[in-house]
């Protein structure tokens, strides 16, 4: 079934309820609304400021497969942190992989597809991201 909103929300919910992720993002005492402002379902980093940490969960363009009945879908999780806390970003990515790889979300298993090292982000920030793929029947 094609329901990208539900796919992203199911991943977001796992992060919102994981104490380790919340600890690393300094969100353990934050309100649900505050948490949802820092763990978002889109890629947005131009407005980062201060000591903010942000997890962005978003789709990258679908890929064709050799079987036209299937599409390969890819969810990317980027972590933006202040540049002096680059190690936090790596710890968050480690936890993200533990939470998503080979786990079932919205009835599909996600598979880790690797990371790329440092990614573009706002000035004064550091970003790393990982990708997870799954197959969708059209």
């Amino acid at each position, binding site marked *: 079934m094609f329901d990208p909103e539900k796919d992203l929300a199911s991943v977001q919910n796992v992060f919102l309820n994981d104490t380790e992720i919340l600890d690393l993002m300094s969100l353990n005492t934050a309100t649900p609304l505050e948490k949802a402002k820092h763990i978002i379902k889109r890629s947005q980093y131009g407005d980062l400021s201060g000591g903010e940490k942000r997890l962005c969960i978003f789709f990258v*363009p679908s890929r064709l497969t050799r079987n036209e009945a299937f599409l390969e879908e890819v969810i990317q999780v980027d972590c933006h942190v202040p540049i002096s806390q680059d190690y936090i970003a790596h710890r968050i990515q480690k936890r993200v992989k533990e939470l998503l790889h080979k786990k079932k979300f919205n009835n599909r298993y996600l598979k880790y597809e*690797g990371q790329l090292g440092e990614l*573009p982000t706002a000035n004064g920030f550091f970003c790393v991201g990982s990708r997870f793929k799954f197959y969708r029947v059209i």
Partner: protein
Amino acid sequence: MSIRFDMQGMVNALRRELIEAMKQLQQELLNEAKQGMLTREGAESLKNEEIEDIAKVITAAISGGAWAAMDEWGTGHMMDTSNPAYREYVNSPYWNPLRQGDNYIRGRPKGSYTDIFGNQRYSSGRAAGRIIEYPKGPYVVHPPSHAIQTAARWMANGRMQRVIKLTLEAFPFGNYIITDQR
């Protein structure tokens, strides 16, 4: 009985399959690069180039105009000067000679000039040398998106190899074995 392998037929067919695979990779690269652009104009100016097959090398490229370059490398004082074409740009007629050192967008000296899009323009010189970036002026600048570089890095991170591998695995090499009963 003899057995033969139609080498030339196989090479021609495999070449066609590899070109199809390259087209798929090219489209994926374009889609990802467009998604990573920070400006609508930058994304819209990106396009696929024709696939080239010259001297047995298949090349699939994407290209963009000035909008894409500005999006990729940033604008004004936020511009990334590690751009390999930066020196060429600074030494070109498109560059405002009053932009020095800090790269802030400044007013042009009085007279006609060629803008980054190649258009002939005229400056009154009223703002010559003054910073005209927002909030001091009308030009809103943005940091580099590095969208094309990042998309290419993701593609090189196993995706290209996988598409080519799948193409080779699915190729019917057996169709080019010919046997006869003579």
